[in-house]
């Protein structure tokens, strides 16, 4: 099966449980199992090729410019982990089917589980390290959902949040590390990186890359000092703990260290950091585990400890240790998943996981006891179980390792870790299952159904099989180990996985550990009291304090900067811009003017005077709002005249028509707002704002003047448009051709935004009118006297008479737009103004009754027509919005041009008409009142009704 399919199957399958949720729990679970089993079989189908020495690869370019490709690769290490993930995943699904209660949403659970499974398989099969990072983050997210699956439990939510925070931060570090690694190696493909050992280790980026990658691995694999999140993640349902926190996710960090072992290991930095972290984690985790009363917490800390053991083995950098690490990953996955499931069974049956409330379950739950016994003894490192074998190898390696030049440091610490490990393993058995039977269990326990104990029993079968006949596992372990070692080292001659190695130092250490563990358990009460007296600081408290400090700091900063004062933001923004611009002006090089100044004339000077006077008057008299509006109209008119003078007829026409609709809009708004702005700012405030404004104005003046006299240092692209407008776009109005052709996509976006703005206005008005504001509006009394005649007859007649003329002008302006000043924008505004005139003159009701197409529909039609014109280009094999044109001659008309851009411009036209009218109409709707019904006769004196009206 293609590697892509193996990775994709769980993701696609994640849709299945949700859909089948209604079909019953059994169907749901079996469908999920089917997905996992299919992927597993697909994985196995690649085994023959793998055994033949090939490395199956699947490639797809994603973003090759960034070095990000969807590349998958299957080698021994990837196969091993993928098999663990899918194999144990299948067992977990069976177990979860019986574990989850009827109140739990099984579809949701299995969806998350499959998402997680897919992400994990993605990590272990990725050949591109950037692609790997995508999956890495996905595991953090999906495990967050799984840990917090019981949303009603505060511990679940907190545990999920903590796990996400810690692993998410590690993920960020990992991204940095991977980018550095890729840069040092010159490629993001693992296959290349794994062969660039010398280049990477000689690079100055090696150390930062190593540290960042290790932070990512240590957080994921719960290594000291990031170990604290794992026990809190135990608030998850037990299947999740068994799956994520024993077999898979926490092994992702280990996997990555093993994957990158050939390039990163072997340096003193690697040795010191990884070995120390591993040893400390192993000892500290094991010590804490002994004194935990919650079965799952005990197992969680034991997992931390065992992960430390594997990390330590990877850290020492010898081939022997790498074999031991692989072997222990396998063994730990088998016995620890079984133990978690056992803990879940006890919890499920006895309704408690507290060791202090348990004991004596041996006779009540014989099957569970048998499973727990096998798995625990393996964890303790007792011969004939698989845990013994890899622990022996670890102790052997420890006996030959020296750290910081202190002899015996590593062997003693390793023995201590093994001793603690034996102690908590024994405690798991003795305090839960042995001892007298009690009569105060929260629920009377008995063995669970077949489906729940079968998965751990199968794992125990593996534990015993590997423990008794290790040479059966040997080819597999060696195969995987060779993939870890790559080309840097080979498996030592004569190494075999076997129970008996002779009287080695490791055996001595093992004996000490097991006996010591038993003695420690025997002395449990005094030891426990001594442990409590030590007052080991709780990592959760430290974590919470750091988070609280970060939240408080961010809150203080945000509240200071973001205090709700808009004026302040605007002031800060203006100051910042002025500061940066002033800095640029003062430090930059000022070019000498290249353009000659154009001579001034009297008309222009008069226009300037009017603009300056109107602007000054606004500043002084803006408190009279209606007057300010009149002044805005004057300024807008001068600006459009200016456009006309400086050779921009299209702009002049657009500006003047926008001016009309804007003033109408603001008039409608002023209808409701107060007529006067009260004088509120202090004199100081006004002076301060004035200084700021004058500085800004002065600088803008200087900048504009300089720009006008010097132009740009680089040639602009404008000449291209002038040269190609007619030849390429078929139009002589270059501005319009740019809008509907060269930059058509921009325009398409702009009309879409315009349409959205109009719809937003409509929606806001609608919600205002429907809510409490609407009632207030309807009861409102206008603050000014109404005009005597609502609809002056002169105006009504005039607007109706010129309506067809204005529409004709609109059509004319639209049609000629491609070659003469005009086009969709301007024509749309003109037509909108013509319609608005009817509203103003004849009244809302009269106009509304004659308006048959809703404005939303016009907007929608406009955007769709523009899009359809663009899509039309696809049918001739051109990209979106490629225009074409031809010349037609239909007698008796003269020859004329037909351009597809005209269709696009029609879309622009319709969108502008619809948007302007929908906005204005929305405002007008607010003005309707209950007390004064608007007449549906346009004229106060209806001539057709005689004198009565």
């Amino acid at each position, binding site marked *: 099966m293609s590697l892509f399919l193996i990775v994709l199957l769980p993701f696609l399958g994640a849709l299945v449980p949700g859909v089948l949720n209604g079909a019953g729990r059994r169907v749901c679970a079996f469908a999920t199992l089917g997905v996992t089993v299919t992927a597993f079989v697909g994985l196995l189908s690649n085994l023959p090729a793998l055994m033949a020495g090939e490395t199956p690869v699947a490639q797809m370019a994603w973003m090759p410019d960034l070095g990000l490709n969807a590349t998958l690769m299957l080698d021994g290490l990837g196969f091993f982990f993928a098999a663990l993930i899918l194999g144990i995943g299948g067992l977990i699904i069976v177990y979860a089917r019986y574990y989850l209660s009827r109140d739990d949403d099984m579809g949701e659970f299995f969806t998350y589980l499959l998402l997680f499974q897919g992400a994990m398989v993605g990590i272990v099969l990725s050949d591109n390290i950037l692609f790997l990072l995508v999956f890495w983050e996905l595991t953090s997210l999906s495990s967050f959902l799984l840990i917090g699956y019981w949303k009603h439990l505060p511990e679940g939510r907190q545990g999920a949040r903590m796990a996400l925070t810690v692993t998410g931060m590690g993920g960020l570090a990992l991204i940095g590390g991977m980018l550095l690694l890729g840069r040092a190696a010159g490629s993001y493909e693992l296959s290349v990186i794994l062969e660039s050992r010398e280049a990477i280790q000689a690079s100055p980026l090696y150390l930062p890359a190593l540290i960042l990658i290790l932070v990512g691995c240590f957080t994921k694999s719960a290594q000291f000092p990031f170990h604290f999140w794992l026990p809190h993640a135990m608030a998850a349902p037990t299947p999740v703990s068994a799956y994520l926190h024993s077999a898979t996710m926490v092994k992702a960090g280990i996997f990555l260290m093993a994957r990158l072992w050939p390039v990163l290991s072997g340096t003193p930095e690697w040795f010191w950091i990884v070995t120390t972290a591993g040893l400390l984690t192993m000892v500290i985790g094991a010590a804490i585990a002994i004194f935990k009363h919650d079965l799952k917490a005990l197992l969680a800390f034991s997992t931390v400890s065992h992960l430390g053991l594997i990390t330590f083995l990877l850290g020492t950098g010898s081939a022997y240790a790498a074999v031991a690490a692989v072997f222990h990953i396998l063994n730990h996955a088998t016995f620890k998943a079984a133990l978690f499931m056992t803990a879940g069974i006890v919890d499920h049956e006895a309704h408690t996981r507290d060791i202090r409330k348990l004991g004596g379950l041996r006779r009540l739950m014989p099957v569970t006891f048998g499973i727990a016994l096998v798995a625990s003894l393996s964890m303790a490192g007792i011969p004939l179980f698989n845990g013994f074998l890899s622990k022996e190898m670890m102790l052997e390696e420890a006996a030959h390792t020296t750290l910081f030049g202190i002899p015996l440091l590593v062997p003693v610490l390793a023995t201590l870790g093994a001793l603690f490990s034996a102690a908590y393993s024994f405690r798991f058995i003795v305090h839960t299952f042995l001892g007298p039977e009690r009569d105060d269990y929260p629920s009377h326990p008995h063995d669970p159904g077949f489906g729940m104990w079968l998965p751990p029993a199968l794992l125990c079968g593996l534990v015993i099989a590997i423990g008794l006949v290790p040479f059966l596992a040997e080819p597999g372990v060696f195969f995987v180990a060779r993939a870890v070692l790559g080309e840097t080292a080979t498996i030592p001659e004569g190494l075999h996985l076997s129970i008996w190695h002779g009287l080695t130092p490791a055996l001595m250490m093992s004996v000490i550990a097991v006996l010591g563990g038993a003695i420690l358990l025997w002395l449990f009460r005094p030891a426990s009291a001594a442990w409590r007296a030590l007052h080991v600081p709780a990592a959760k408290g430290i974590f919470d304090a750091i988070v609280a400090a970060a939240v408080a700091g961010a809150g203080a900063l945000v509240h200071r900067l973001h205090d709700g*004062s808009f004026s302040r933001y605007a002031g800060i923004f203006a100051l910042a811009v002025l500061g940066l611009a002033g800095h640029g002006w003062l430090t930059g090089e000022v070019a000498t003017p290249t353009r000659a*100044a154009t001579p*001034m004339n009297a008309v222009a000077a008069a226009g300037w005077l009017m*603009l300056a006077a109107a602007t000054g008057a606004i500043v002084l008299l803006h408190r009279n709002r209606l007057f300010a509006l009149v002044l805005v109209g004057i300024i807008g008119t001068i600006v459009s005249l200016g456009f006309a003078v400086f050779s921009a007829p299209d702009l002049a026409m657009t500006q003047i028509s926008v001016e009309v609709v804007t003033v109408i809009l603001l008039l409608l708004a002023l209808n409701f707002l107060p007529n006067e702005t009260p004088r509120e700012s202090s004199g100081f405030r006004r002076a301060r704002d004035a200084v700021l*404004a004058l500085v800004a104005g002065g600088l803008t003046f200087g900048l504009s003047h300089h720009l006008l006299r010097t132009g740009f240092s680089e040639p602009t692209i404008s000449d291209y*448009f002038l040269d190609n407008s007619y030849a390429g776009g078929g139009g002589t109005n270059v501005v319009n051709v740019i809008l509907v052709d060269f930059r058509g996509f921009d325009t398409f976006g702009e009309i879409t935004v315009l349409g959205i703005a109009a719809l937003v206005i409509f929606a806001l008005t609608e919600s205002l009118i429907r809510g409490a504001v609407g009632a207030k509006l309807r009861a409102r009394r206008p603050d000014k006297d109404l005009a005597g005649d609502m609809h002056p007859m002169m105006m009504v007649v005039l607007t109706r008479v010129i309506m067809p003329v204005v529409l004709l002008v609109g059509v004319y302006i639209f049609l000629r737009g491609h070659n003469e000043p005009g086009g969709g924008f301007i024509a749309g*505004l003109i037509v909108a103004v013509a319609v608005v005139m009817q509203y103003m003159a004849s009244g809302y009701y009269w106009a509304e009754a004659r308006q048959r197409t809703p404005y939303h529909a016009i907007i929608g039609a406009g955007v769709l027509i523009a899009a359809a014109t663009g899509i039309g280009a696809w049918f001739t094999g051109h990209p979106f919005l490629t225009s074409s044109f031809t010349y037609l001659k239909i007698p008796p008309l003269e020859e004329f041009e037909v351009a597809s851009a005209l269709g696009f411009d029609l879309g622009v036209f319709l969108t502008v008409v619809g948007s302007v009218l929908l906005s204005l109409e929305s405002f007008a709707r607010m003005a309707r009142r209950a007390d004064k019904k608007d007449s549906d006769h346009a004229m106060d004196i209806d001539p057709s009704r005689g004198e009565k009206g």
Partner: protein
Amino acid sequence: MELLVSSAIGILTAAGLYLVLRLRTFPVIVGTALLTYAVNVFLFASGGLTTGAPPILRDGVETYADPLPQALVLTAIVISFGMTAVVVVIALGAYLGAGEDRMNDTRPRVDPARGEPGE
């Protein structure tokens, strides 16, 4: 001529910024309108000032005004109408709903988790 246009941009910017810093919604809306004029004219002017040479292709004419800033400013003018309309409706809704048209709300925040004013 350059002096006139650039000083007009400066005047509009200064007046616009001053009005934007006022405390009620209406002057702020007027101020943004003035700033819009200033920005549009500035963008337009970046193509240089040309009189009597609109970018409409004619036989035998060689010099034209720069069409690109014109095309950019044209859509900017239309979009600015949409923006003004949205801001006005928001200001109107705030005034009709809360009964006042102040820009700034610096009352102590209510912490949604606790439901009481806190800092």
